[in-house]
């Protein structure tokens, strides 16, 4: 059971939250300008690092707010949670895995 620190409500158990996958993947500003391959990258490709991962959670059974977390997918340790509008915090344990599709 993960315990996740909602930026609005504080620490709550995982069963209050929904998972949203990789964070910082914006809906393309002009989808029609993209090639099929680029559009496929947006639709289907997400980073899948073994290590630190910026990901989205929603506090479904609480404030219903989406927020981001930095979690280590090996240890499941969450090192930061932050608002979607905030930049990804600099991790203290080293650089994040590169995010090739990230549009901050």
């Amino acid at each position, binding site marked *: 059971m993960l315990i996740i620190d909602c930026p609005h409500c504080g620490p709550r158990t995982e069963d209050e939250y929904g998972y949203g996958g990789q964070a910082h993947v914006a809906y393309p500003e002009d989808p*029609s300008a993209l090639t099929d391959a680029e559009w496929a990258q947006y639709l289907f490709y997400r980073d899948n690092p073994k290590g630190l991962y910026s990901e989205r959670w929603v506090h*479904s059974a609480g404030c*219903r707010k989406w927020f981001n977390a930095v979690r280590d997918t090996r240890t499941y340790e969450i090192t930061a949670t932050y608002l*979607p509008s905030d930049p990804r915090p600099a991790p203290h344990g080293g650089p994040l895995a590169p995010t090739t599709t990230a549009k901050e």
Partner: protein
Amino acid sequence: MTSRRLATGGLIGRDETIKFTLGSTTYAGFAGDTVASAALANGIARVGDSIYLRRPRGVMTCGVEEPNAFVRVEGGYGESMLPATTLELADDLQMTWEDGIGTLDQSVDDAEYDHMHVHTDVAIVGAGPAGLSAARAAVATGVRVTLLEQDFALGGSLLGRPGEQVEGRPAHEWVQQVRAELEAAPNCRILLRTSVFGSYDNNYLVALEKRTGHLTTEGMSRQRVWHLIVGRVVLATGSFERSLIFAGNDRPGVMLASAAQAYLGRFGVLVGERVVVFTTNDSAYPVAADLAAVGATVTVLDARPSAGCQLPPAVDVRFGMVVVETLGDEVVTGVRIASADGSDVVPQELECDLLAVSGGWSPNVSLHSQRQGALRWDERLVGFVPTAPVARQALAGAVLGTSWTEGCLSEGAAAGADEVSPVHAGERADRAGATADLWLVPGPHGDLATHFVDPQRDNTAADVVRAVGAGMRSVEHVKRYTSISTGLDQGKIGGVLTIGLLTQLLSAPDMAAVPAGQPGQVVGDGAEDGEVNEGGRATNASMRPSPGALGTTTFRAPFTPVAFVALAGRSRGQLYDPARLTPSHGRQVELGARFEDVGQWKRAWYFARHGEDMDAAVARECRAARENVAYMDATTLGKIEVRGADAATFLNRIYTNAFAKLAVGKQRYGVMCRPDGMVFDDGVTFRLADDRFVMTTTTGGAARVLEWLEEWSQTEWPDLDVWFTSVTEQWTTIAVVGPRSRQVVAALAPDLDVSKEGFEFMAFRDTTLASGIPARIARVTFSGELAFEINVSGWYGQSLWDDVSAAGESLGITPYGTETMHVLRAEKAYPIVGQDTDGTVTPQDLGMSWVVSTKKEFVGKRSYERASHNATGRKQLVSLLPLDTTLRLPEGSQVIEQAAAPEGPLDGPARMPIPMIGHVTSSYHSQAIGRSFALALVKDGRDRVGQQAVASFGGRFVPVEIGDAVVYDKEGTRRDG
């Protein structure tokens, strides 16, 4: 059988006799007994046969690691595979010995099981000397403390040594005093009979508390699963004594030395009078002393050349000796012994009725390891010990290898107070003394067939040898090749023994091929200061690998077995995903409704009158809606208020069609798609004001849609001023449908102009009903007929149902259910998301290109430019008209081309695949067109309209005509009445 119970001694309640039955015999024990102690007291040595080899077996341990003695409890809550060594004796328990295979009780378990969720600052697992000391210290700091003990008594290892002096008084008095102190403290909760079986991330512990006996529930839950969120965990989980591997080491009468001591000290049972103690370490000497002190004849065989402790008086100690074989028919009557170095040619024999064995100690690291806590092999302690506690945890006592009570007390006190342990690693090894790393005593017969490593699984050293011979190098492979450690004790008996044995069987050059059981978690072996042995491979000149190089198998929850039903807790029966009911549910039950599950809701499916089957009921309901007037409960549709200055802009981006210019007081149907362009949900949205909408969603999709809106609003368009509130349960909705619905609504809402001109299609009005109930009435249709949807506050839901019934009574208003709703909408080809779509269907596929804006951007639009959306072969919604107009195709029937159909029916699967072009999504008898019809998704279906095809179901192949999706009132003449 002779009684083995001594006249005095032990911590049992001798004035409270307990009767119990094992098999067909009734016995007596005392309060405070376990089933095993009572059985041993009654002279029962053999408790059953081994699972496969059918060898006699006896009680081997005094705890959760027991591999042999299991009972099935009969009666009320029959339960199998309960270790006799931990089962508390209770009046009238009826039990049968089991031999490693249980029998499930098939009766329904009507007892209650519940779950408790708590926060605690400090949780201490284990109430031995270290745990009690930790609890005392933690309580003194004023924080909330929870002490969890799996046994029904506090004391841990002290229970077996009640006379030992602790802080100047006998151990059992000391335990009682600490208990009294803790019970008096307002900040301490003691949970007895509570096994912490799982340790998860973030100090989340899961524990099972056994609250009542087996036969009664005493008005409370039988068992409780505790979920604890813990600030700091102190693991004072102790250690397990190891057995030794020699011929016949499984014979009844062979017991762990500490168990023999515990049966004596705690239960007053002297398991044997002529005792041989076979040890590799000093811990067995106090056992020998205790046994000798009550009159047993004791011989100690110590595999080492000397002991590190004082030798007990009146005990025959022989150094450098080992047991090579046990003797006896059913139970041990003697042992064959030899010198440890193999120099004796002819083994000697010794008579005995108890062989107490100590092969060293393995710290009980299960909960530590469940959290990926690292282990190292300690050469001096000869055991896997934690390298360091995991974050926000502390370790104290024997789990670290601290073997002396005083050390456990000071270490516990430090752990409880969150201070650094005063015990140094070196001291642990010094105090424990040397342990011989003896992993195998070769037998006198040259084979290893009765050298048991895992008695429960009937696995021997011969099996391990065979595994290595087959090429197995990893502990995990050996486990799986043999099945060692897969029994109820999950390796508590055989785990480390196997690893030790493997170190003798593998030579160093082999080690390159050895994958560690837990890669990266066992940090090699090494000095006690935690130094990692580089590479962790061979550790000495003999080229034997170290156990640390092999690693362990993975420790997993649960530490001890847990009944499924306890984990289910209250989430059973009516409380398993509780059903959602609408306010008028009771009225619908009275009218004879049958219900279907839609999402979490119960929805009326159809209302059969007496003698009617479903078809007849639905036909009647359909006619009523098309020819007269009918009503249904539409409350379950999801309803979401969308508010804010940018609400219209937001909806315009989410829906495929335009919403920006929707007028206040009007509604519009909309479809929303996922970014991949597939239909996600649909529904009608009302515009209440410039900045205020109410969106309706599908019944099953409401929660999903709300999250969807939140997601897009918050994560993609945070600049938009818009927010969302679920109002599904705040509103009740009754649809009044049919050419005479206007009359009913007029009667209900006398202030409302319900005329065609005064209340146009897709408008809505707020009004007050004749009953005084405020209402919002919408002109909208899901049947093509003139229809109104009346929305009132949920509190008035049943009242509205009654009012509609009354207002329509003179007209013969008819209640209808979801089946009729489905027929009516299918006649008009209104799709049901999730029935006519399956996540691979676009609005265009449904024939609803009109709902897909070409002018604006919306979620998913880009996907329609992809190759697969512009090639032929997309499945499109059409109708199928069976040539046999009475035949209703089963939903799910497949559609094939005429040319592909076989000559006759198939009574099994096709021999060669028959290509399919589509499938039936909806299928009904239509009263309106007087025949059966279906909706289907068919490849290039719209190009095939007018053509024949074949529907396949149940091996039959029937001709159908493909038609336009709409089969009734294509012109839409009926919606205004």
